[in-house]
């Protein structure tokens, strides 16, 4: 069991460029979560998929951010026209089900927008 895999580990983009972050959940896990972590805001919930279906994207900024889960083996978080304030560590987690189950976190992708 390789755990949750996130790629790339580090990404540097210029202001206005697009960034796509990848997450491979643990096989057999039906729930996938995306979080953003910054020193100022801490851990912020972004979005949640259950059995590949988007359930809750209430934490996603309404513009420029989108997330998809085209199959059970990966999810993507796309940020269009990146801005310096998007700089953060983006964490993906998977679990067997909803919130009562332990979430297994990936190592995160550190996004730096210059």
């Amino acid at each position, binding site marked *: 069991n390789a755990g949750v895999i996130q790629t790339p580990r580090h990404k540097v983009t210029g202001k206005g460029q697009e960034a796509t972050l990848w997450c491979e959940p643990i096989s057999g896990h039906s729930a996938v*979560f995306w979080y953003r972590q910054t020193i100022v805001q*801490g*851990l912020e919930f972004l979005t*949640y998929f259950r059995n590949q279906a988007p359930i*809750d994207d209430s934490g996603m900024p309404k513009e420029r951010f989108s997330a998809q889960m085209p199959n059970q083996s990966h999810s993507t978080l796309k940020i269009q026209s990146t801005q310096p304030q998007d700089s953060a560590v983006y*964490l993906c987690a998977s679990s067997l089900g909803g919130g009562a189950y332990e*979430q297994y976190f990936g190592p995160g992708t550190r996004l730096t927008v210059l």
Partner: protein
Amino acid sequence: AQSVTQPDARVTVSEGASLQLRCKYSYFGTPYLFWYVQYPRQGLQLLLKYYPGDPVVQGVNGFEAEFSKSNSSFHLRKASVHWSDWAVYFCAVTRTGGYKVVFGSGTRLLVSP
């Protein structure tokens, strides 16, 4: 709305000394509570979890936590801290049947020799 407060942003403990990290939650109904640890440049890992039942929960690496409904608290304890415990600790809460987990702001534990 559910919330979690970790009042101490940073705690310094001598190696071998005991530890308590504080967590207060605000919640309606029956909560599920968690403590996660984040080591440098890694994701979060579960230390322990509380489901309704015994208020004292044992976790990995000698950690335990005690749920108190009257105090709305879920403090983390360890009898003897090791240098490898140097990390950031997050308390989290969710509700029965829910999916969204609310995390506290984290407490950075520093271990002095």
